[in-house]
């Protein structure tokens, strides 16, 4: 490291560059500190980016990236003309839409309700309880769901057969897959989602409430004219962030809950890449699918950033 820097200093003779090198030398500790992290990013993030070239090859593990045959856009053409493409697009899109419509508002509503509780002991206990599932793994959540929802012994089905006289096949019925996924997300993450809204609510100026009371505003008018405007920018920025990650429905969760019976509605881009790539060994084809998803993802994120700036927020980056 030292050696390389000395040589480089000798090599440059322009005074401006020289002072830059002097500054680097003076603060060599900073560079030494940043080095391990930098190596991490180059090795584990940028080398795989280079590995994307196999999407344009017929990659064979024996020949390696250097010697495999180039096929251009063949894998993309195959994917776009494949009925799988529309199925994946549809499943991903519908799950994202469900997430936006059902899950997104849930933490806002829950934090507004928590905010109305004046008993601080009760409020704190509730908060501690609803945060806990966030720290559980998807495997735990999925396992508990299996135990509860399975037919022939699951708690929910035992109760259902007592109440309506029949069981519902939640785990393997395509009709129940999406509600089950959204239900799990709500159970796991709604409580945690309130953290940011409760913080925004805590920073609302109490005088505004007092002024509103003097003006004769009832509870719901105060909610409408004081509380909700205070949450506006947090809601907008989170909504835009969510739009930017529209294609990213929880991969682990969907993988865990999908099976051969509900696959028609459960397959999304990420799980497809796993099944076709890792388990079936179609490396090049599944890399092409992954690349397609990444590019659409970037377009969505950049678009969301523009949108954020347009509505007067400071944007994402």
């Amino acid at each position: 490291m030292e050696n390389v820097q000395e040589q480089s200093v000798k090599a440059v003779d322009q005074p401006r560059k020289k002072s830059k090198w002097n500054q680097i030398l003076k603060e060599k500790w900073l560079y030494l500190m940043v080095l391990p992290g930098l190596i991490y990013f180059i090795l584990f993030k940028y080398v795989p980016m280079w590995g994307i070239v196999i999407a344009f090859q017929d990659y064979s593990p024996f020949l390696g990236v250097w010697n495999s045959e180039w096929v251009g856009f063949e894998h993309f053409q195959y994917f776009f003309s494949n009925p799988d493409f529309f199925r994946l697009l549809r499943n991903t899109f519908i799950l994202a839409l469900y997430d936006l419509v059902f899950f997104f508002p849930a933490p806002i509503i829950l934090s507004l309700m928590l905010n109305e509780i004046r008993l601080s002991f009760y409020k704190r206990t509730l908060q501690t309880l609803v945060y806990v599932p966030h720290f559980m793994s998807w495997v735990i959540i999925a396992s508990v769901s299996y135990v509860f929802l399975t037919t022939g012994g699951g708690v929910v089905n035992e109760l259902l057969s007592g109440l309506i006289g029949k069981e519902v096949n939640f785990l393997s019925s395509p009709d129940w897959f999406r509600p089950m996924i959204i239900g799990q997300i709500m159970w796991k993450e709604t409580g945690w989602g309130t953290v940011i809204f409760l913080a925004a609510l805590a920073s609302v100026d109490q005088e505004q409430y007092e002024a509103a009371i003097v003006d004769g505003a009832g509870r719901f008018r105060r909610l409408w004219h004081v509380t909700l405007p205070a949450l506006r920018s947090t809601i907008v920025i989170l909504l835009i962030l969510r739009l930017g990650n529209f294609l990213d429905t929880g991969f682990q969760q969907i993988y865990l809950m999908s099976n051969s019976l509900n696959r028609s509605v459960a397959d999304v881009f990420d799980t497809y890449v796993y099944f076709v790539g890792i388990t079936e060994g179609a490396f090049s084809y599944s890399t092409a699918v992954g690349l397609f998803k990444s590019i659409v993802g970037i377009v969505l994120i950049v678009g969301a950033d523009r949108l954020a700036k347009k509505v007067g927020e400071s944007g994402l980056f």
Partner: protein
Amino acid sequence: MHRMHNTGPGRVFDIFNHIFLAIVGIVTVVPFLYVVGGSFATESEIASRSFFIIPNEITTNAYDYIFSTNAVLRSLGVSILVTVIGTLISMILTLTMAYPLSRKNMVGRNLILNLILFSMLFSGGMIPTYLLVKSLGLLDSIWALILPLAINPFNLIIVKTFFQQLPEELEDASKIDGCTEFQTFWRVMLPLSKPVIATFTLFYAVFYWNDFFQALLYLTDTSKWPIQLLLQQLVMVANTGLGDLQEASLYEPPEESVKLAVIVVATVPILLFYPFLQKHFAKGVMLGSVKG
């Protein structure tokens, strides 16, 4: 506080609100209570009673069984090892990288920040990463569970932002006292960062403890499976029993209480962590909402 108009519709709302939130709280924890209760119940009680939290007859049979097998103890050991080593490596890498990047006078800082930002937007994806891990010879090694995800870029940016807002006079003062950059970082900045360190230690530890997918991707050797992957195979993959995963050929499909006991064992360590760090993480999450 604004406690007027506490009659009429407001009062009805209060009552409704308290009841609704109590139900939310109960719905959140009842499944866990059932799992814990069931893990101490006899097989016949689970089969005959549809729902209970405290079993009529308490037995530790399920725990006796799972701790008599190699599979559970061994995978708990793997999980503990991965969590401890992984969290340590992640925290060291994150802190040492975040600090230089928080210094505005560092030459090349923007280049590195853009490199990080771009890696958050675009990635090689699952297959190229898998091929990299394979060519590094990390398949079937617990390092494959740690190294590929050692730095979480979001955490890194938040820690950087935290260092950035510490007063500049501090580093000037320590420089005058003759500290090197590293000494400034070690003796001045780190002691001021305790809440951040606590928060991200928790986040990284939870991440490593909870991961099953890295293991599913990179480990075929069942003796290196972490507890989450063992649990997944046990509950979700048909016809896998603990017996399958032991050297001993004694095949015995997992019974209900055994599954429940493994769920408990995979959850409890995180719950033990939680109260110690809970007071810190609310603060840490607030930092998260500060834009980098």
